Every structure is written in C-alpha cells, then in structure tokens.
C-alpha cells in the first residue's frame, strides 16, 4: 500500500511538471485538441457514410455504433493522456542512452518511462470523449442497467491495462532492435484493428484479438458489455488473462533491460 501511495505521489509530481510545461506552449494545447477532435470526426464520418446504406453492421445499429465510438474515444483519450507520448519517446531513450537516467532512479522503469509525461491537452479530449459517450447513451433507445455500467467501468480499466502492457511490450522490443521508428509504426498499424468492433472480423481473427493480441479488450469489449451484447459470464476469463499477460510483459521488459547496452555517456 505504501508503495502504491509513493507511486501515486510521484505521478502527481509528473502531472504538475507537465502542466507547468504546457502553460508555456499554449498553441500546442489547442492544436493537439483540434487534432484529436479531427480523428474523432473522421471515425464518426466513416460510420455515417456506411449507415447511409445499411441499418446495422455486424449486429450494431447506428445507436449501438455511437456507443462503441464513444467508448473508443474515451479509451483513446486515456491512452493519449497517460501512455502514448511516453511510448513514442521510449525508442529515443534507448537510441540516445537517456534510458540510463531512468534506470538510476529508485522506481521501476516500467513506471517511470511509460508514465513520465502526462499529455495535458488530451485531458480536454478526454472530457470531450466522455461527453460524446454520455450523449450516445442518452440517445440510445434501450436503457442501460447499473450492472452493465459497473461491468463497463471494470472492463474499461482492464482495457487501459491492455493499452499499457501492449505499448510496454513494443517499447521492450525496441531495446533489442534499436531501429526506432519501425517498432512504433508496427504498433500503430496493428492497434488500428482495435478501432472497429471485433464482430466485423473473421472468427479466427477475432479469437486472436481476444487472446494473443487482445486489442478487442480495449474498446470493443467494454462497449459490448455496456450494450448488453456480452455478459460477465461470456468474458470473465479475460480478467485472469490480462493479469497473466501483464505479468509476462513486465518480465519481458525486465529481461530486455538486462540486455540494454547504454548508447552514450
């Protein structure tokens, strides 16, 4: 418990530091906000075009899809706030040898490297995304029982953990590969599979997105839990699975660090 409090206080200090930095670059705040809103708009635009020609896609009505998109926006904004900018910096730490400084600190590098920079502009996007999700829920014709909402929050937290360990895994890979950009593009391309409801994919592909590469757990599963398309009974097994994958990723990260050869003085 004491360790958790220590880590939370440290994250509070990171947040404060990033907030001060952000105040110096206010145009960056506005531009990052607009950029993410545009991403939301094109995702919504694509589905609006598709729904001009159909009333449902893989069992998702237009109202269901708005809930899915709201969930996707929230999970994306959480990723942008907490992990994304750190993940993009990690290969550069390896290349320049800056990782040495993280290794010297008395906190686990999986925490200090992946949570050091809090993306403040994306906090505004998170608020927008939550607003969009609440709007989607309010216009949906079906009611949302409390147990669905609680299960949704649980799987949203689980999805956040998946986002974290997938990026940590790719960050660890970059220690071996050093070729920096490639690994980020690999993750960026693969992660796009999670931007659509998993039910659109072929069964084999879908199984992969639940197990080996659990991108479906990030947005698709929480949205389906909220919509009542999946129940706890269907997917309870993903909770121990995520715990095991997180543990394995942390072990792999430690293993990669043992093979890290400092690149500079």
């Amino acid at each position: 418990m004491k360790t958790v409090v220590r880590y939370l206080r440290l994250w509070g200090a990171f947040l404060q530091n990033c907030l001060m930095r952000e105040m110096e670059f206010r145009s960056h705040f506005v531009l990052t906000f607009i950029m993410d809103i545009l991403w939301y708009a094109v995702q919504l635009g694509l589905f609006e075009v598709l729904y001009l020609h159909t009333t449902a896609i893989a069992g998702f009505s237009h109202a269901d899809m708005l809930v899915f998109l709201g969930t996707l926006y929230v999970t994306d904004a959480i990723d942008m706030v907490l992990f994304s900018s750190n993940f993009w910096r990690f290969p550069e730490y390896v290349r320049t040898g800056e990782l040495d400084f993280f290794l010297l600190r008395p906190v686990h590098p999986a925490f200090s490297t992946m949570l050091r920079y809090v993306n403040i502009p994306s906090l505004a996007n998170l608020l927008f995304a939550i607003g969009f999700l609440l709007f989607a829920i309010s216009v949906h014709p079906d009611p949302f029982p409390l147990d669905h909402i609680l299960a949704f929050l649980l799987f949203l937290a689980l999805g956040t953990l998946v986002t974290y360990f997938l990026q940590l895994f790719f960050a660890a890979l970059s220690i071996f590969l050093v070729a920096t950009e490639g690994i980020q593009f690999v993750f960026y391309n693969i992660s796009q599979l999670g931007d659509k409801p998993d039910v659109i994919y072929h069964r084999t592909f879908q199984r992969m997105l639940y197990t080996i590469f659990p991108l479906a757990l990030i947005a698709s599963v929480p949205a389906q839990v909220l919509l009542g398309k999946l129940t706890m009974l269907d997917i309870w097994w993903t909770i121990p699975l995520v715990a095991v994958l997180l543990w394995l990723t942390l072990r792999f990260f430690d293993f990669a660090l043992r093979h890290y050869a400092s690149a500079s003085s």
Partner: protein
Amino acid sequence: MLRTYRAIVRTALSQSMEYRINFLISSSLGLIIGAAIHIFLWNAVYDAIDHPRIGAFDRKAMLFYIGCATLCSVLTRAYRKEREIAAEIRSGELNKYLIKPFSFFGFVASFSLGERLSGWAFLLIIAAVFGFPILYAANLSLSFAGICAAIPFLLCGMMLNFLFTLIVALLAFWFDEVWTFQVMKDLLLWFLSGQVFPMSVLPAPIQQIAHWLPFQYIAYVPATLMTGQQHPTELLPYFPVVLFHIGLLLLLAHWIWQKGLLRYGAFGG
C-alpha cells in the same frame, strides 16, 4: 544542372536503403492491415443489406476497390524528406541548402523521388506477392488499359501528397511544432481520398464537391481505373483539373517559402 539533381536522386536512393527494414515493415503492415480492416468492415455491411449492390458496387467489386485504393494511397503517400524539412527549419539546418547552388524545391523533389523509387519497388513486390493469389482465387482481374491510365493519375496523386506535406512542413517558419498539422492533413486525406469508401457512395451533392477537390486523385480515381469501375475516357476530362491543382499548390508552396524565408533567422545549423 540536371546532373546535380540526378546525383541527389542517387544519394536519396542509397540512403533510403538504410531504412529499408523500417520501410518494409511500415508499408507492408499499412497496406495489409489497412486493406484488411476496411475489407472486413465493408463485408459486414454487405452481410447486413438485402440487396446485392451499393451504388455501382457489388460485394466483390467493393472489396476489390478497397484493396486497390489502399495500395494507391500507400503508393502516393508522403515520405521522410518532406516531413524532415520542418525540423531542419527549426534547427537552422536549412542553412546548408540555402548556400548551395541549386533550387531548394528542386532538391526536395529530387530527394523525395529517390526515396520513392525504392519504396515503389518494395510495395509493388508486396502487392504482387499478396495480391495476385487473392485475385486468382477470387476470379478477379485488373484492367490493363485501366492500369495504364491510372499511372499518370498516381504520379499526380504522389505530387499532390508531396506538395500538401511540403506546405505543412513550411509552416515551421511560423510554428514551433507542425507535426499536429501533418497528422490533421493525413486524417483528411485518409477520409477524403477515397481510401476507405468510393466517392460514388456519397450523397450526390457531396460527390459534386469532391470532384472539384484534389483529394480524390490520391486513391479514388486511380483505384476505379485499376478495377475497371470507370473507363479511362470517362476520367480524361479530369486530367487538366488535377494538373491545375498541382500548379496551384506549387504556387502556394513557393509563396509560403518566400514569405517564410523573410522570417527565417538562420540560427544554428
């Protein structure tokens, strides 16, 4: 002068080989995953409708179109050099180009061409390895006349994307960071170029507007020619339009460059 630019093309070609693994991974994944996601998505749409066609596209034609449009958008995409200019303006590294006896635009265009030559070779090999077995299995064929007509449009699409990226990079004369603008431009191109849906499935008034915008030449026009959805003669009148867009963007880039140089402090480098 031509010899200078030929040397730049050769240098870029050999430099791009250093990044071949990065390029191979990002391009092949961009092509395969990008196409797969939207093929699955459109397949789910066709599963849900009770009529066989959306506009002029039946299921097979739509999936074929999505595959070709993704290939076109990857072929015409922007490369490293035009993006790097923003960083070079900020760091003052631009100075090294200003003192050399060649046109900066000529240098960037030649370098970019060199990078693309290796890129196109990689991509066409990937497309052939994955594409031909799929075409054979699905009993589909590419239109030879369409491919011949698509090549000039693809070259124009490449120039358009190059100019869009260059113009955004030149904004670094005024802004500390332009990567957000680059992402916004990429998002707009992804949506408006016809990579994820053919423009003909849009409502008629939007289609009319889209026809006069430059974005459709990046994926929609070459893809419909390759798949045989449109006959080359139907799209011939659009060729002067795309050339007009290129000319306009070139003038705009030149104007921004001139204005930017007046602001440029040339510190660092």
